[in-house]
């Protein structure tokens, strides 16, 4: 029975039909096929295709599939409609690039800022990181305060770019 993988990596969809028979996986169809045999060895999976064998590890996170191979880690997201439908709006949303603590908020609502101006400073793992304005504009919203703990992806500042 044919099934379909629906993943994406770094925003690029990877949708491919596959078939499985015991340890054999056939990806794709017709001329564009990739056949592999998978064997489990402890933590590792050996993926053999023709002459080459790739040793991989795999684990599933909450929304992601993590794979490791030759010391490189690859993260696949489960695909769902609209995953890349990030609105190409006219405002810049500055989001927390990591989980941490806000140490300083330089952005003030209504203030004009120049590209590169520091808007918010966050500390994580004892290092400070500065979020800067991606372009010239006016700060239309400030959604964080010094001392606050922020999670990865939290909205911190909204900037209206100067026309």
């Amino acid at each position: 029975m044919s099934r379909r993988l629906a993943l994406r990596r770094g925003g690029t969809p990877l949708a491919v039909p596959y078939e499985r028979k015991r340890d054999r996986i056939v990806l794709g169809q017709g001329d564009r096929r990739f056949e592999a045999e998978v064997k489990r060895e402890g933590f590792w999976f050996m993926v053999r295709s023709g002459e080459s064998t790739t040793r991989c590890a795999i684990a599933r996170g909450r929304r992601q599939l993590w794979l490791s191979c030759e010391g490189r880690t690859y993260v696949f997201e489960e695909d769902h409609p609209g995953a890349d439908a990030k609105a190409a709006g006219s405002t810049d949303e500055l989001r927390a690039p990591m989980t941490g603590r806000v140490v300083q908020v330089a952005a003030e609502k209504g203030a004009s800022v120049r590209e590169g101006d520091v808007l918010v400073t966050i500390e994580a793992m004892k290092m400070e990181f500065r979020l800067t304005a991606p372009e010239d504009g006016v700060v239309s919203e400030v959604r964080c305060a010094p001392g606050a703990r922020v999670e990865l992806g939290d909205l911190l500042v909204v900037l209206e770019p100067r026309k």
Partner: protein
Amino acid sequence: MSPARADYAAHQDAARTDPVAPAIPFRKVLVANRGEIAVRVCRTLRQMGIPSVTVYSEADRGAPHVRAGDESVAIGPAPAAQSYLDPSAILDAARRTGAGAIHPGYGFLSENAAFAATCRDAGVVFIGPSPESMARLGDKTAARRTAASLGIPLVPGAEEVASADRAVAEAERVGFPVMLKASGGGGGRGMRVVSSASEMKSAFEAARREAKSAFGDDRLLLEKYVHPARHVEVQILADGRRAQALGERECSLQRRHQKLIEESPSAAVASKTRAAMEDAAVRLAEAAEYAGVMTAEFLMGEDGSFHFLEVNTRLQVEHPVTEMRSGLDLVSAQILIAGGRSLAEALGRAGQGSAKGASRSPAPPEPRGHAIEARLCAEDAYHGFLPQTGTILMLAWHEEDGVRIDSGIAQGQTLSPDYDSLLAKVVAHGKDREEARTKLVRALRGTALLGVVTNQSFLIDLLEDASFRRAETFTHTVESREWLPPATVPEPALAALAAYVSEPRSAGGAEEDTDRYSPWQRLGAWGRS
């Protein structure tokens, strides 16, 4: 078995069989740290037959270091200032458990002279130098003065800058670019390169905040930014009277002034330069009547000239590089010296097999081969080295002779943003640099750490880079280039594996495996019907 492990074992045997072996110096030792260094210190304590106590914050309840010792004490909430940096919480834990000595590891309270003094007043041995030695060498300003009085060349600069305006004036005197540094600590915190007067105000304030938060001390000093330069440091072991140099480490590959790769010996240090650096480091230690392990850091120019940078009055993160070459256990040496043993005893007893008669000969073991360490950190090296958090879904290390892993993490652990991003150190020893390098690359390629973005792939890039192969490494090497994720992705193989594991309930294959340690089983089935 790796040389280091073999050496620990040999040391243990010697301790058991030597009839004149002095009793272990302490009844019980508290390890006032977390992560890989707490685990590593506990290992030596166990080998020395000394019961150990670890401490943990609320965020570290399930962390590996909590289980590494014989007992563990909760010391407070997640922020370090209220737990690992809180002197009274640490001393209270020592009192409650009856620990007679405290090993501070690195970071946190390890270079805090006031804490060392408090320990002494409380009748607890601080495993490290005396508060007086620390004040003379650990404080960067005082260390510069001590070095200057001994005629050791210094990087031009100003010992104390109280304001951004003062810093601008000093920077104009020595010439931009300059480096602002925290007087009271190291590890890259509170450091900023400033290339013009207009950048000074914000850099000064940021460095000051970082210094305050990391060390509780916001004093800054200013130095001319030497460029291009290599970072070379000398390891010292001393007993308060005499000091012994144990070779150098080159740690030029850094990001944000934090080291990524360290090695010994340095390919760029000529034997004459090595002797001069070691001599300078020994004189610094002896002038301060230093007891314990110490590192003197130098910047080396392209012409081989060197300038004194600072002293770290503690065990360094990269100490395994020295251990793997010398066969010494530096933590054991620290403990012996803190327990009143002489340098000769510490060198002999913390060393390898030939312990008989070693106490009469203070000469350290001749270093063998080459060792390289890579720091595995939770950070996205391809995107500004941003710290990463998350839960470790799977962890598998590469084991091989001559490869040592000092790790503070475990599968299932959730990383807190409250602490340093260092997860583990992977260290390789080989007969020469190339053998150590290939072994380290193999160890990193053979490691799987899933669930948190780390710099693993980037470390491989660095070690495989032409500049590293040729040993052309400078303090600006990492940050002067753009590093990109690997261009070729084995996507078909990865997709095949993703497909393979997406139907765990189908017949046949690996799914019949009931390995309960498999992350796959633990995390449940992935897929859709």
